């Protein structure tokens, strides 16, 4: 009984671990193109962070932590940075 249990566990482990080698369909282009997808993912992460920063600045302004003058200056800078990230993202996706 114990031997059988160990064999079942070992068989289950082999099945789980070897599953990727038993895949019949070819890898997607996205999966193969690791370099480009990594660059896109990196830029998307930067874009998310920038959006969060813009939203934070807006909330800081609404709650009175940033004066109108400071907010416009910060907001303009952040939006400019966001635009350059979006441009880079478009370029990366085109490749």
């Amino acid at each position, binding site marked *: 009984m114990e031997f059988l249990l160990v064999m079942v566990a*070992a068989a289950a482990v082999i099945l789980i671990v070897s599953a990727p080698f038993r895949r019949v369909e070819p890898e997607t282009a996205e999966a193969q193109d690791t370099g480009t997808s990594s660059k896109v993912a*990196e830029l998307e992460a930067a874009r998310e962070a920038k959006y969060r920063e813009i939203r934070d600045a807006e909330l800081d302004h609404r709650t009175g932590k940033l004066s109108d003058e400071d907010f416009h200056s910060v907001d303009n800078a952040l939006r400019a940075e966001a635009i350059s990230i979006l441009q880079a993202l478009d370029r990366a996706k085109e490749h």
Partner: protein
Amino acid sequence: MATVGHALLILGLVVAVYGVAASLYGVRTGQRAWVDSGRRSMYAIAGVMTFAFLIIEVAFLRSDFSYNIVASASSTTTPTFYKAAAVWSTQQGSLLLWVWLLSLWSSLALFLTRRRVREIVPYATAILLGFCSFFTMLTILFANPFSTSANPPAEGAGLDPLLRHTTMMIHPPMVYTGYTMLTIPFAFALGALITGRLSAEWIQVTRRFALAAWLCLGIGVLLGARWSYTELGWGGYWAWDPVENAALMPWLLSTAFLHSIMIQEKRGMLKVWNVSLILATGTMAIIGTFLVRSGILSSIHAFVSDPTLNISFVVLIAVMIIASVSLVVYRRAELRSESQLDSLLSREAVFLIQNLVLVALTAVIFWLTFFPLISEAVTGQEQSIGPPTFRPFVVPLALVIVLLSGIGPIIAWRRVTVANLRRNFAFPTAAAVVAAVLLLTAVSGVGGHTFALLMFCFGTFALAAVAQEFWRGVRARRAMTHEAAPIALFSLVRRNRRRYGGYTVHAGLAVLLIGVAGSSTFQHQRYATMKPGQSANIDGYNIRYVRSTAVPSAQKISFGAVLDVTKGGHHVTTLRTSYGIYPSQDPSLGVVGRFFNSNSVESRIGLDAGPFHDIWTVVNAADVPPLQPYITEGDAKFASLLTAISKLPPSAQSSQLSTLFALRDRLITELTQRFVTHPWPVQFLLIVSPLVSWLWFGGIIVAFGGLIALWPIPVLARRRVRSAAYAARLARDLA
């Protein structure tokens, strides 16, 4: 099933080693199938370890004493609840718990990142599987939970009475969850360094795990403090014990990390700092595990020292440090900041100062924790370090942290004008000044305790700052949406979980540290030896020992006391405390003596907890001098009777032994009852502490804030990101 368990451990080790090789081979050759196979190795280990852990749990629940760890840490009389928890009271069981939790959390992390950070993941997988290999190897070679005995005892030694506490069911799994989760950002940080992909991407992927680790470790530390306060019988909650410090240090470093990564995410700054911080945090988590396991520093929480185990840990820690430092130095050029601080009057600057203070605090605790070991190595004599050595360093730094936790929320990112700063600081500063005036005028003796007074003021400042932020946020939201205040508050928090979860944590920390300052500075404590009818005074309270109690049971003998607390002639509360003695398994203590002279004891404290003060007491009934002559006489008589019975034919022995043990039980019951009929004086520790409840309440607020910050971003917020993206694109087109 022990053989199955052992085989599963070996299977786990083989799969972990295979997974390391597959991940590295896959990433080096660019063959995705090998990388995926490496990742799936972790899933397989999680399954294998779950099975192994279940086997050992079932052995404990069934009181299967053929397992050595069950015989050493459980018994048939141990309540089921504690049988389940007894697994991690042993070195072997807790190491298995470590591997199991590591495999579970790593599987979750690798599953969630299976289509992200593709270049980093294979290295992170290999590192996490490397940790799995190490800990599984330890369980196989040095601390095998599945080792069995050919001649199992009829009864186990039982769980250490000190561990029979509700929080101990949750405390170790929480701390281990924290430790194991911290290895995830550690592995991804190393992966980012190896691949050179050092943007904020790896941080975004692992931030949630760092936050969850911080939360679990924090809850674990707090539960440990609660256990210390209610179980250990010394009246304190924190003793700067090495094992307590071992959990606190990675918590402090992860607190710093969770703040400083925001600067990298937003500004691309502090890359070296962040990566170094998380590598240090991960290493500190392993050092913490090592301290508990090794017993190299004397601690009530540590396991027995094992030199072979210790060497293995030292090698692992050395490898982690060398790899971390080498990679950071190798990548130093790519880790340069993308921008600089715009202003010293900005949240970035506050975070930076807070980071420096937290790291300094960790360094101080690390130095003082290891000082006994260092002094022994240098002078040959181990010097003990206690709370008074820690306080002069820790208290000022804690004050700065509380102050900064108030400043952080009310200062904006990037830059702030002085006029704006004045406007935001006015209310919290006024609140702190009012608190100082009220305390100095209404509470006598506060003025003489500068640090405590400052902590109360800074804590008030932080609470007022957070309250102001919530108020302004709700007001701004109501102006936009015209929602009712409670709905506006809910929506505000829901849409900005990181921000308002963080603010809630800051408020909780302020409450917690106010509690620490109050309870440690203004505590009254005294010992009093009393007989029923006698009383003692402490901090204006009269505590009268009303009557003694005694409860003999199969599990333990319990001597107790009922005390009446009055103030100014008015009844305040009734306290009940007891001292439990568990029978020893050592036959040399005598047939009767082993029930009274055991080292296996526990204290049940009498506690009246209130919002402003706790009245705490514990009875020490370890000595039973009035019973000793009876115990000695009983031991002698029963020994001679046992000798006589052993000479009888085997068929007659059983019934005679039953009669003898029934007599013994009756004698023990009668001796125990003498504590009620002929009570002797016993010593009480009496403590009146203000604001202890604030500590626990503050901890709950911190945990609540952490959960808010941890909760996934709602769909609505994601939608907003997309609309913001369109807005930014529109702005670009217009330009």
